[in-house]
């Protein structure tokens, strides 16, 4: 029976990625010199399930690679090998590599990274080292056998099969395996040396025998291994091969042949691994060619595998079911009233009651449905220990990372989009914020710097704080740099707060040398822009030599937005509340007209360009001139812009609906929503509207 495995592969990917996450965090927690057994076990289990799963799904590249990890981990687990820092680094690199591999698999593209071969080799060497010193030569020589195998076709295999004592109890019969081998080529089976107990102590169900098998076949090693697939964990099997000259197959040559084999595969357990690694390399090629096969099919749905799924805790589902149950009861109650022929005083009262209940349940239901999309922020926080460790090492800084409020929940979509800006900020703190241990000691601080990530709810928002106890912002340096770049006038004096805000300006960096990590000046304005796109905001507080604190404020969900309803002619639009600074009526003498027809208003000591919304949207409006209407001052890419509208209506929370689903993107409009009366109102995308009006850079021109 053919089972289409591909339908499960998505689940496998998710589980594997989770496994990798677990592996990563456990690796980071691991005290290398004194590894906790349970930690190693967790890492081992993760690698083991990824190996098993990928083999089932035919992702041999992943399976082969994780097999190496597993082997190494197994030895560490059993105490046969001492964990080293090197191992930890290799394993962490492998986690990254495997993530990339899964990414490639999900996108159905070939994975081709030189790092794979490099790490594979490193592991091979490492594993071989365990018991024998000269590993590289071994792998080289077994490489040779492969070459020879390809040259002559037929190989003479000597298989040393030491059956485990439990092999029969597990229902595996060596006889059947030998029969299977016989089908692959000429086979001779010899009983090898073995030690059996005294007759009285013999357990009839135990197997005390070892065999020496000789096989001449043109089949590759994998095929041979397949025969022993079920027992390879409990038996010790060593394979060694020598080429067979034209038809010179000599199955009777007996054990002496092993000596004549020049293949220096060590006769330990590790030996088998050595061979497999190289075969792995060959398999890799095969995997590549077979990978190309499903490619055309993939093209059609290669779009983005992002749609994904979400894991919801049972509690949340139970709550939902509960509410739906209550909703059904309310519905039944209302239905009963509806069936009555006429409505009297009494039934009217219960109707009202029922509707009230309905309203409550609907609201509760809505809230709990929204809850489904909420994930604890630890999903985002989890990647930081690794990041901080790596960068700290790179920079030679000692860092202690503190995570707080990991259980704080926020929308999955918001979470996905906030990670990059956070990574940027943490990197900045590490690079620019924290000082080197020497500097810290000189300042009388502890040698180890602290970076704190904190998350909590406040009102309808979630607050994420990134706090470091480093050097803080050097206001003098920032100011002089800003003067140098002409962002701030030579004589202009700024408050500390205003100076701090300068770092969010595009192209601003005070670091003299551009480092590998940050300092190119593309950073903070992008961070701010990304956060603004999420309808959030970012603030900075910094004290010199005490540290800095970035505060990110985000809406809990992207699906709901606080909106200001405005009227333009007979059309109603929604403007996101977060982007509005203020709204005002402008006196005629504060309006300046430029030669190209654009108009500026004077607001205190600033000049702001005004966009006439009705003009951009081709509507007829009541207020055609700025003096007749209201100007709403909004924020677009950190620039203030005025929007001319007729009237401000109410403020309300609106549920965002997509226009693109059934229509297409509309410039200046980010989406739609449904108002209380059932009509549709469009949500204004301020940035889009500004570029529609074509006046983004006007301010800089004017200046």
């Amino acid at each position, binding site marked *: 029976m053919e089972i289409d495995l591909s339908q499960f592969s998505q689940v496998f990917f998710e589980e594997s990625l989770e496994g990798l996450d677990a592996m990563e965090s456990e690796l980071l927690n691991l005290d290398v010199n004194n590894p906790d057994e349970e930690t190693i076990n967790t890492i081992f289990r993760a690698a083991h399930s990824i190996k098993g799963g990928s083999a089932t799904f035919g992702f041999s590249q992943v399976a082969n690679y994780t097999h190496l990890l597993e082997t190494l981990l197994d030895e560490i687990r059993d105490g046969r090998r001492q964990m080293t820092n090197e191992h930890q680094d290799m394993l962490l690199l492998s986690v990254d590599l495997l993530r990339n591999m899964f990414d490639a698999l999900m996108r159905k593209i070939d994975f081709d990274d030189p790092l794979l071969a490099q790490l594979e080799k490193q592991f091979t060497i490492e594993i071989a080292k365990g018991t024998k010193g000269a590993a590289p030569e071994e792998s080289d020589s077994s490489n040779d056998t492969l070459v020879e195998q390809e040259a002559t076709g037929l190989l003479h295999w000597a298989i040393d099969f030491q059956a485990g004592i439990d092999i029969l109890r597990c229902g595996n019969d060596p006889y059947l395996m030998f029969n299977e081998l016989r089908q692959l080529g000429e086979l001779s089976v010899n009983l090898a040396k073995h030690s059996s107990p005294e007759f009285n102590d013999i357990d009839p169900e135990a197997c005390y025998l070892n065999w020496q098998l000789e096989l001449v076949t043109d089949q590759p090693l994998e095929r041979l291994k397949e025969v022993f697939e079920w027992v390879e964990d409990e038996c010790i099997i060593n394979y060694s091969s020598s080429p067979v000259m034209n038809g010179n197959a000599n199955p009777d040559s007996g054990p002496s042949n092993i000596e004549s084999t020049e293949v220096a595969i060590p006769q330990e357990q590790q030996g088998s691994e050595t061979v497999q690694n190289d075969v792995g390399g060959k398999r890799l090629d095969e995997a590549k060619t077979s990978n190309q096969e499903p490619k055309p099919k993939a093209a*059609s749905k290669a779009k983005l595998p992002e749609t994904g799924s979400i894991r919801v805790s049972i509690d949340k589902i139970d709550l939902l079911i509960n509410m739906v149950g209550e909703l059904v009861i309310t519905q039944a109650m209302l239905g009963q009233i509806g069936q009555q022929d006429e409505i009297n005083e009494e039934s009217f009262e219960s109707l009202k009651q029922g509707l009230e209940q309905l309203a409550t349940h609907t609201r509760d239901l809505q809230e709990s449905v929204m809850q489904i999309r909420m994930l604890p922020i630890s999903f985002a926080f989890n990647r930081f220990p690794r990041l901080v460790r790596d960068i700290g090492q790179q920079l030679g800084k000692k860092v202690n990372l503190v995570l707080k409020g990991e259980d704080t929940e926020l929308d999955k979509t918001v979470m996905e989009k906030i990670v990059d800006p956070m990574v940027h900020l943490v990197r900045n703190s590490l690079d620019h914020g924290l000082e080197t241990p020497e500097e810290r000691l000189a300042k009388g601080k502890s040698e180890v710097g602290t970076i704190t990530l904190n998350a909590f709810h406040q009102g309808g928002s979630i607050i994420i704080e990134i706090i470091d106890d480093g050097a803080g912002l050097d206001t003098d340096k920032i100011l002089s740099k800003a003067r140098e770049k002409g962002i701030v006038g030579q004589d202009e004096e700024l408050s500390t707060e205003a100076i701090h805000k300068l770092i969010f300006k595009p192209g601003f960096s005070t670091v003299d040398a551009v480092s590998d990590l940050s300092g190119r000046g593309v950073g903070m304005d992008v961070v701010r822009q990304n956060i603004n796109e999420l309808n959030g905001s970012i603030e900075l507080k910094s004290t010199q030599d005490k540290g800095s604190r970035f505060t990110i404020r985000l809406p809990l969900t992207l699906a709901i937005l606080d909106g200001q309803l405005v009227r333009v002619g007979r*059309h109603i639009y929604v403007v996101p509340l977060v982007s509005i600074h203020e709204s005002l009526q402008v006196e005629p003498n504060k309006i300046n007209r430029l030669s190209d027809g654009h108009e500026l208003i004077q607001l205190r000591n600033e000049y702001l360009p005004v966009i006439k919304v009705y003009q*951009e*949207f*081709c*509507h007829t409006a009541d207020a055609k001139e700025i003096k007749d209407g209201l100007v709403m001052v909004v924020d677009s890419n950190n620039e203030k812009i005025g929007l001319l509208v007729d009237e401000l209506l109410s403020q309300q929370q609106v549920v965002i*609906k*997509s*226009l693109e*689903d*059934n*229509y*297409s*993107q*509309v*410039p*200046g*409009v980010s989406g*739609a929503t*449904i108002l209380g009366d*059932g*009509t*549709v*109102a*469009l949500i204004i995308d301020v940035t889009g509207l500004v*570029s*529609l009006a*074509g006046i*983004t*850079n006007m301010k800089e021109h004017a200046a």
Partner: protein
Amino acid sequence: MTEQIQNMQPQKQDNDEDSQQYLTFIMANEEYGVEILSVQEIRGWESTTVIPNAPSHVKGVINLRGTIVPIIDLRQRFGIEVLDYGTTTVVIVVKVAIASEHKVIGIVVDAVSDVFSVNNDDVRDVPNFGEDTDLSFIKGLTNAGEKMVILLDINRLLGSEVLPEAEQLSQLMHNLDADKQVVNG
């Protein structure tokens, strides 16, 4: 309408695989047909929310049970003189497949007429009106009793409606950006 569809039920079972059912509607005395399987529902005209800068035949969007659905005036699309919308103006909500995506779109027509089966053999090709006229959105012509019915390929008709529009708009935005850069440079 429901009555008509019910009438069709027994007939549908008799149908062989070569025939398809069409919903026909009337516009400027012509009868047009769309595949009934693509029709989601038929509604009366209701006022829409205008989409800024949309082509004139896109009347705007409505709230269809929580989904935002664009409404397209077929008269304007076909360049026929526009009528005032009244109580009898009908919106046919159709589901179209555009570039492997399903979109729900409403089309404004004068009135809904009938439902009947058309055997694929009875569909005649569109006469060639010369290269200038692109009539690929017409699937073919057929006769229903005395009348001629123009069978529309709704995916082509509305597909060329929604997508190129989007392309044009993004092109427009792109041009605007380019202009700006020139100005700044």
